[in-house]
């Protein structure tokens, strides 16, 4: 079962929900931090480092002795990652998406691929939780290839929790694609509601079932509740605006450890998410 935890608006509590969900699971669980631009899960769930691997994307490299500067490659590339100046090729690896097109179009066979480092993936083990931590190098623009590399570590047959980046654009879509269920974390404020609507539309576009967690529930107004009711989206958990939660979060502590009275609520959240995902699978089987 793949559970993605996402939100339109940032700072609503995605990581809080992800790490606490992982902690209360009674079986082996994977937590994959797909917010590779600003990964935070490791600040809450540290553990023994099991593996570390650099992630590279294939970018073109020109053999100057073969290149005659014809410009086929640069006119093919949609991302302007090659330019021909004075009969020789300049490459801009930071713009390259790694499609491999330039290599195929080069009539002289002058281009080959080399790896260009974009970040690292580290795997930690703490109790029953295996944390896969993707971290983009500073200055690298494109997160999706690293997110795909993190997701390639998903193991079948266990619970995999994906901590998504904020927003609704390519890094988020790359993360939640193929998830069985998406948990959208929001807060009951105008910004929270506005960005929740965008996130619900995005999840709808990808045809994934979703439920909502409302954080700091007494801090705002009732419009998020009304929206969920109107759209028939289940509210899976409400977390109160409790200064103790904020303070324990600030120190990197899990809610279920610092404030054990909240543990049953996260256990129930996991149960409800599992139920949503099971129903979803039954329904999609009915269509086949």
């Amino acid at each position: 079962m793949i559970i993605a935890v996402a939100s339109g608006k940032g700072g609503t509590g995605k990581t809080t929900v992800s790490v606490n969900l992982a902690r209360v699971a009674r079986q082996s669980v994977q937590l994959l931090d797909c917010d590779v631009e600003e990964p935070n899960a490791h600040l809450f769930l540290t553990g023994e480092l099991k593996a570390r691997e650099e992630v590279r994307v294939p970018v073109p490299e020109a053999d100057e002795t073969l290149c005659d500067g014809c410009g086929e490659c640069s006119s093919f590339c949609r991302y302007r990652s090659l330019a021909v100046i004075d009969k020789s090729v300049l490459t801009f690896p930071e713009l390259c998406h790694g499609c491999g097109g330039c290599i195929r179009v080069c009539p002289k066979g002058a281009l080959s691929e080399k790896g260009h480092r974009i970040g690292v993936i580290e795997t930690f083990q703490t109790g029953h939780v295996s944390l896969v931590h993707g971290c983009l190098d500073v200055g690298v623009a494109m997160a999706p290839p690293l997110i795909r590399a993190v997701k390639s570590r998903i193991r079948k047959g266990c619970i995999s929790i994906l901590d998504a980046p904020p927003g609704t654009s390519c890094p988020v879509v790359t993360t939640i694609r193929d998830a069985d269920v998406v948990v959208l974390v929001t807060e009951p404020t105008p910004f929270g509601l506005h960005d929740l609507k965008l996130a619900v539309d995005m999840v709808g576009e990808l045809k994934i079932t979703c439920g909502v967690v409302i954080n700091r529930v007494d801090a705002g107004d009732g419009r998020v509740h009304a929206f969920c009711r109107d759209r028939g989206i289940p509210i899976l958990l409400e977390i109160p605006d409790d200064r103790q939660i904020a303070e324990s979060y600030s120190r990197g502590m899990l809610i279920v450890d610092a404030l054990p009275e909240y543990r049953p609520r996260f256990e129930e959240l996991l149960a409800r998410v599992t139920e949503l995902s099971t129903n979803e699978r039954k329904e999609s089987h009915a269509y086949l």
Partner: protein
Amino acid sequence: MRTDVKTKDSRPREIVVISGKGGTGKTSLAASLAVLAGNAVIADCDVDAADLHLILKPRVLKQDEFRSGNLAVIRHDDCTGCGLCRELCRFDAVRVSGEEPGQSTYRIDPVACEGCGVCVRFCPAHAIDFPEQTCGSWMVSQTRCGPMVHAQLGIAAENSGKLVTLVRQEARRIATESGYPLVIVDGPPGIGCPVIASLSGASVMLAVTEPTVSGEHDLERVLALARHFGVQACVCVNKWDLNPEMTEQIERHAKESGALTLGRIRYDKSVTRAQISELSVVEIESQAGMDIREIWKQLNL
């Protein structure tokens, strides 16, 4: 009264409000700065979850489509089902149904397609079209504190970095042509392509963080990004009293890395109250508003 003489450098200054971590108060702060400035051009560069319009209530004067990139589409009637497109696609965007060779139906998943054009170029039957995409829209508006350029990225659309670049260029153009001295940019969270597009070439970056382990970690990466692009960084800690020791630690590290610390904003529930009333924090009576006024003074723009 004398008219202002243009100085030798008449280009408008550009301040980018950014945070690394989401939800630390970028938009609340950017809206407040816009109100305090009174005559700045405002650019909302958080194009995939834009919220500034909820406070500044822009009246749209001009709206345009944002067209960028292309998407591969297979014409079923011409497809021979050879499967080469699927073999060549690096983004796992070609989906197939049916098992028998020659009987299979191929289609491109529009969400996964990166618009590279490899399948289009190499399809032996020339059965793949490559139409240009509309990825959203962008607007020039009027607000109570100056012109505003903002945008809306399409659902699950790509090219947010290019849309950010477009919004910023337009804001700078308006500022230069109409003589506004300042552009205020509300940036996106993270450190990836839309953030780089918001930051590169700006006069100053104001990073808003919070005194938490995540806030501290994410700020470090944003400060590294500012150094990478040679942009002067300033830091302010929001909700600082949630963890005073952490606030001090963050400010110390920020100074060590060459950033200026501009001030602190206390935890104040009126920030949410202002948002619900569709006002900026400095437009209601609040202690957080006083803190923001102090930061504005320190910025000295």
